[in-house]
């Protein structure tokens, strides 16, 4: 329950961007209501599955091990997006990312040194102690202490927008609806990756076989309403970040634990037992980011990694045990594949493997010759039993379709004008900066930078 039906600032959403906006607006003196569509446990959308944020810094600070100049950050972003980015907004996000380590620290968020399997990110990314949910708990704690009102299970169901100006929102509450008026509105309610009907519209029936890595509450209700009320869109509905995850994962909210990164150690076959892409093309994370789409293009949106004894302990342990058998045929049978097709594919692959010095930390010289598709690196014969297999499906992390914003996180209307009191932050506008591709931790960077801008803008607009 909350104290009234009128606030200075209404924030729709409950993740990193929403709380950065709410805290900033509150610290500027605004009365703030945060309407989170999910129940308390699932609060925070994709933030609960994050682990770090990317921030530029000229010198080592805190647990960040070295310089990560703005220019390098920009180069990284340019590379992954292939130039599909709004340069002024991207440069703004990068410049302001340098403040985030200290600003989040001042809100109570604690960081840790990168451990285990993430050393490569220790220079560029700040890791939350205890992960994204711990970071969220801290931000909620701070928000409550500041007197921000927070309501859960409060999905926004309707928006009244008059001439590009926010008037009120209809919010689901206790089985009924309440209308909340506010002088300014911050949309930080994420993308639509959990909205299966919308995914189906964008992708066709193949979307039925997608797994959704975040909560079932990322339904894009606010995004849909804003686009319907005349806010300009960025990005395409059929663009989404898809990684290949264990096919046995839950339909929703499997998160990080469902990742599988063993593609590089073997061959990947489709349900006809045939290879379809170069497994040794690239390193993680690029490899990680393309395989979801590759699997989505295969029949029934499923694929199977096949590896042997040499490789079983070379990658992060998996949540589900691998299929295991003493022969390739028996393994294929266990996975429901045609044994002779798999045996044939692996035999052909083994025959094409050239000798080389295997080293999975560099683009090594282990490759195939005369095979289509080739395996360009890390190609080793699959010939030592036991053989292992993992099934893969596309796991949708986030969607790129969003609302257009300016450098103050203010929404741009379809006719080119700016809204006077509507702001957006986080995944709902990340497409402005990240038109395609992915850079680890950049979602949190965009959420925190534009969350702070949106909160400040909304507090000013509400005066």
């Amino acid at each position: 329950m909350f104290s009234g039906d009128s606030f200075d600032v209404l924030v729709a959403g409950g993740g990193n961007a929403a709380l950065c906006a709410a805290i900033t607006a509150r610290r500027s003196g605004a009365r703030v209501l945060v309407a989170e569509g999910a129940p308390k446990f699932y609060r925070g959308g994709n933030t609960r599955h994050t682990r770090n944020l990317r921030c530029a810094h000229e010198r080592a600070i805190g647990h960040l091990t070295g310089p990560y100049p703005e220019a390098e950050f920009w180069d990284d972003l340019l590379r992954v997006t292939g130039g599909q980015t709004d340069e002024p907004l991207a440069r703004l996000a990068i410049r302001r990312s340098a403040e985030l380590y200290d600003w989040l620290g001042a809100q109570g968020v604690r960081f840790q040194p990168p451990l285990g399997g993430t050393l490569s990110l220790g220079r560029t990314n700040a890791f939350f102690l205890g992960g994204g949910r711990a970071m969220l708990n801290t931000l909620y704690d701070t928000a409550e202490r500041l007197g921000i009102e927070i309501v859960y299970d409060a999905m926004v169901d309707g928006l009244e927008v008059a001439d590009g100006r926010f008037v009120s929102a209809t919010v689901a509450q206790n089985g009924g609806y309440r209308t909340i008026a506010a002088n300014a509105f911050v949309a930080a309610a994420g993308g639509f990756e959990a909205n299966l009907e919308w995914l189906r519209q964008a992708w066709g029936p193949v979307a039925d076989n997608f797994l959704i890595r975040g909560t079932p509450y990322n339904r894009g209700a606010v995004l849909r309403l804003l686009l319907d009320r005349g806010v300009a869109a960025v990005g395409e509905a059929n663009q989404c970040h898809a990684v290949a995850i264990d096919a046995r994962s839950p339909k929703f909210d499997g998160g990080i634990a469902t990742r599988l990164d063993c593609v590089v150690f073997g061959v990947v076959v489709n349900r006809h037992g045939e290879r379809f892409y170069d497994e040794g093309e690239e390193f993680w994370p690029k490899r990680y980011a393309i395989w979801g789409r590759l699997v989505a293009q295969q029949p029934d949106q499923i694929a199977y990694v096949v590896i042997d004894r040499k490789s079983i302990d070379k990658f992060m342990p998996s949540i589900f045990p691998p299929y295991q058998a003493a022969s390739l045929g028996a393994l294929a049978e266990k996975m429901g594949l045609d044994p002779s097709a798999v045996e044939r594919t692996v035999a052909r692959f083994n025959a094409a493997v050239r000798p080389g010095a295997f080293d999975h930390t560099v683009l090594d010289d282990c490759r195939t010759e005369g095979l289509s598709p080739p395996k360009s690196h890390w190609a080793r014969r699959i010939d030592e039993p036991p053989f292992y297999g993992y099934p893969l499906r596309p796991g949708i992390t986030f969607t790129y379709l969003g609302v257009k914003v300016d450098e103050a996180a203010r929404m741009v209307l379809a006719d080119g004008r700016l809204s006077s009191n509507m702001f957006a932050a986080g995944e709902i506008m990340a497409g402005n900066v990240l038109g395609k591709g992915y850079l680890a931790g950049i979602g949190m960077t965009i959420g925190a930078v534009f969350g702070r801008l949106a909160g400040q803008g909304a507090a000013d607009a509400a005066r």
Partner: protein
Amino acid sequence: MPRDEAGRDAALKEADRVMTICNACRYCEGLCAVFPAMEMRRAFAAGDLDYLANLCHQCGACFYDCQYAPPHEFKVNVPDALAVLRRHSYARYAWPYALSGVFARNGLAVSLLAAFGVAGFIIGFVAFKDQAVLFGRHAGDFYAVMPHGAMVALFGAVALYAVLALALGVRAFWQGAQGSFPVKLDGGAWLAATRDAAHLRYLDSGGGGCMNADEHPSDPRRLYHHLTFYGFLFCFASTSVATAYHYALGWPAPYPWSSAPVVLGTLGGIGLLVGPAGLLAAKWKRDPQVTTRAAIGMDVAFLVMLFLTSLTGLLLLVLRDTAAMGILLAVHLGVVLALFLSMPYGKFVHGFYRFAALLKYAREAKSGRVFGQE
């Protein structure tokens, strides 16, 4: 008393399930030693799980930080899974194994021991001495009621037994966890483990204070545990100094208020009143989601026994010149005897298993074996 093999199997299975999920996630690796230790493994044998269970200090942070905690369908609850297994591990490695069932009914067993202990001393005093002696004034001279030699013989024998049983239990635990044997005396690891135990480094969720009633970090348990632990050490030091006075200096009790044994004992006694009371209060407020209720009898029995040991000891000190001394001595000695006898079969063992686990972890951390990469 029955041993709960089915219960232990279920606890091992659940801990294995949970650790397998955690090992694929690893977001909690900065919180404590359990997760880095887990990352050094790809599969978890029973001894590995016992080790991880005893490495866990039950701070609760990983439960509130976990995106897979219930109501998520993965139902990951590390503090609870490890607490349940930890309780079974105490029974599994107890010596002699025939007495391991005591852990399951610990509250009852300790209460009975305490009652028989107190009654035994009263009956003993009356049987061996005149009733008038029991209720007489002796200016603080305990040996008027029970001769020094008898006291040393009884408590010496019980203490030796407790030490033997504890040592054999820890040895079995160490072997179960594939600790190297004989135990190497590498100073660095021993120092690290001692420091981690002395600071309760891992009852701090990586620096923010442990969770107790809910997801908001507060730090009462670490403070109260320090009071309890150092209170116990002070009392132990008091007894040791008194023993030295008696045998080395030929200076028998009673000792004056300003003497080392009385000052140490009084300070320790205060710690053993405030600490266990605080831990009990914290236990009552604990979020039931993160702690197994099955172990509460054992936890409460141990805390109450420590509290009673201190309370009866301090009362004995204050009233040692009065006619109540005889009965108070019987009560105090009865409680202490029960505490000693129950040590290898109650919550007291947690300190030794935890230390052994910390020692093993200090060794592993040095060798730096971490599997997998991102």
